[in-house]
């Protein structure tokens, strides 16, 4: 059985990590415990190992899954690898060439020419993204390592946080991939077989060059604002998540200054997204442009950032409204140029068809609520069109739940749960067994597990008296964040009477029901 010392230190580390807005999961063994802390979703984790040694209790903090920071390279590897495969005739004809559904190389990378400049830029972009998230992970770990000793001494301490600029890079990363997706959708016509392209050219009565110029212009005008908006909003949301201690977010100096600060921060994060996005599209999709279009594109970042900063404290609905209306109004602006430039007619119709697509941006809200049930609150997957993290997290959550269940069921098989550290029994086992059989014993085990949890929430040298029902219930609801249910009360009163009331003899059905709810309560705590 896990010692109270290990349990108490684990509880302390849990409390400590929760100050950094981490969500934890503890695995107990006899003389050691392992705490897994996840702040982002699933992939990015910190592991804390606690072990009893001959010289005392040892605590170690480790960073887990460092390699996952470099997953950003995968799409870029496709981007650089596909043209190489194509030039060596290694791509199947169903993926590239005239007979394919779409030419996958030009769908993903437009007119990308592999040369020293393009390769170095396309390696540099994911390298910066991944090094930034790796640095964030390591900085967070070193904070946690260095501050823990102060935390245990009850000294005044302030958990330092990541700088807002680093968080902006994370927001810019989402916006970058968002913009890439839009580029794919806009320029997909040039990846299609030539007879489809000639259909389009015939309908709009234009040459291919004019169509390309029109699509370039439309894309540059629209993408600037959308990338800016996504980057600004995501960075602001991540900052709220990461930097809960940030004074500007909590207090500020009045509503005006808070708004201005939000807008300035959004401007910086939108421009960071632009620094990544502009070289990327100029190497791939947009092959010719004019100075005036670049001005349009850049002012798109600025205008969208102002809007993104202004709606910082609003919900997802206002973000989607801003996003959709931006698409709509920019389309309206372009509609009045369609008379002069027929290519804009093509762009405008594509944009109008994309407006309902923006509603998808709030699709993840349901998932967020579901995660809240698992005590996971993260928005790292917001606005991402390929939310890989969410799959990993759902998998991890389910596997952890199963693991906890197995671990607890195993411990139930051992009799030691009713013993204290020295192997003495807390209660007379035969009395309970005589009154209510195996089910009664199980209920008692759940009850003492609950007591152990309650006990470990105190400091090492504190004396803990046996809690009342009310104290237990308030402890449970505080830890799980749920309102206590009728079943919880029933379980506690049943366990109380089983252990202390000699005359009490319950019915079998009632016992089975209570045992179930007791087990559920304990599993929720773990």
């Amino acid at each position, binding site marked *: 059985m896990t010692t109270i010392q290990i349990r108490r230190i684990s509880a302390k580390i849990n409390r400590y990590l929760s100050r950094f807005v981490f969500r934890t999961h503890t695995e107990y063994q006899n003389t050691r415990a392992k705490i897994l802390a996840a702040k982002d979703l699933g992939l990015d984790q910190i592991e804390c190992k606690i072990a009893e040694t001959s010289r005392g209790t040892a605590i170690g903090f480790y960073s887990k899954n460092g390699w996952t920071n470099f997953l950003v390279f995968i799409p870029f590897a496709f981007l650089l690898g596909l043209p190489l495969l194509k030039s060596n005739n290694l791509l199947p004809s169903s993926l590239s060439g005239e007979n394919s559904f779409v030419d996958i190389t030009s769908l993903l990378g437009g007119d990308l020419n592999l040369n020293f400049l393009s390769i170095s830029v396309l390696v540099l972009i994911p390298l910066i993204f991944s090094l930034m998230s790796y640095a964030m992970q390591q900085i967070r770990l070193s904070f946690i390592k260095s501050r823990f000793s102060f935390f245990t001494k009850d000294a005044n301490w302030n958990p330092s946080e990541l700088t807002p600029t680093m968080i902006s890079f994370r927001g810019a990363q989402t916006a970058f991939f968002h913009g890439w997706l839009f580029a794919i959708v806009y320029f997909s016509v040039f990846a299609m077989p030539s007879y489809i392209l000639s*259909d389009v050219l015939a309908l709009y009565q234009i040459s291919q060059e004019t169509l390309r110029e029109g699509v370039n212009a439309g894309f540059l005008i629209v993408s600037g604002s959308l990338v800016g908006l996504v980057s600004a909003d995501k960075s602001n949301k991540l900052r709220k998540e990461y930097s809960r201690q940030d004074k500007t977010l909590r207090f500020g100096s009045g509503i005006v200054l808070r708004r201005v600060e939000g807008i300035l921060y959004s401007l910086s994060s939108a421009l960071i997204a632009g620094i990544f996005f502009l070289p990327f599209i100029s190497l791939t999709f947009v092959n010719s442009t004019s100075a005036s279009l670049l001005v349009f594109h850049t002012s798109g970042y600025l205008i969208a950032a102002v809007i993104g900063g202004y709606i910082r404290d609003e919900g997802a609905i206002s973000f989607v409204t801003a996003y959709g209306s931006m698409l709509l109004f920019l389309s309206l602006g372009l509609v009045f140029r369609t008379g002069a430039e027929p290519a804009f007619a093509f762009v405008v119709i594509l944009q109008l068809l994309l407006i309902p697509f923006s509603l998808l941006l709030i699709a993840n809200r349901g998932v967020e609520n579901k995660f809240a049930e698992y005590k996971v609150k993260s928005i790292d997957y917001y606005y991402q069109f390929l939310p890989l993290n969410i799959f990993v997290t759902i998998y991890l959550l389910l596997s952890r739940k199963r693991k906890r269940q197995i671990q607890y069921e195993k411990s139930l098989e051992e009799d030691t749960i009713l013993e204290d550290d020295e192997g003495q029994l807390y209660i007379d086992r035969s009395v309970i067994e005589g009154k209510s059989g195996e089910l009664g014993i199980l209920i008692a085990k759940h009850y003492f597990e609950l007591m152990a949890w309650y006990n470990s929430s105190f400091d090492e040298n504190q004396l803990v008296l046996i809690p009342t029902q009310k104290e237990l219930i308030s402890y449970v609801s505080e830890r799980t964040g749920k309102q206590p249910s009728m079943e919880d009360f029933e379980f506690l009163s049943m366990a109380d009477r089983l252990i202390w009331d000699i005359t009490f003899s319950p019915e079998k059905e009632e016992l089975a029901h209570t045992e179930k709810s007791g087990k559920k309560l304990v599993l929720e705590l773990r």
Partner: protein
Amino acid sequence: MRKTFQAIFLLTLLIASGIQNSAALWGENQTYIADDNSYYKFSMVVESPLKWAENERSTVKVNVTLDQTPDNVSGLRILYIQFILQGNVNGNSATPVGSKFLTVNDELRILDKPVQYNTSISTPSLVNQFELNVTLAAIVTGNDTTQDISNPRFYRYIFPETLSKDSQQVQVFVDLYGFPPASFLLRWVTILLPITLIFISPNLLLISGIRKKREKKLEENEKEEETAGGEEE
């Protein structure tokens, strides 16, 4: 205030409707001396619309008037008139973008009576603005002064105003040309669909999870009911 708004509104309407001056314009009358001794003088004036309708032909009129001759016997023999439209193509301002060769072979003898030559020229497609350059080849005919017909003199008339193409596309504000072709849309939606599915996949995953849970619960309830019913019996 209201009147100001009305005025601005009307002004905007005027600008938007793009009032166009389609009326033809006469250029300035120019006088030429046709021989070395200044016995022969004639004047030329060209009429052309300022805006040339796109994909159509516009009429250009040339009026030539004999002003002075040594005696009534001799006159001015006009051999041909060449009309050249010059536009700015790739930075080269005098590139010919259209031309017309009008063979006349006409002899003017009567003084002060203008003779008009009409021709229609199609609007150039390469440029939006162009110049009209009219060159007249003529010789004088008289006993002593008759010029060599195989080596005529050229008299150039540059139309003073720059002509512009009346592009119909400019007049139209909105032209959406209908929906993109179905062959394109089919592929476009097929590209969009997997992206959408991937994006909402976490929700689908959750929905299926919730459904399974419900089914499980229902099954359990049914089992419980069955066992309860069996006990009652």
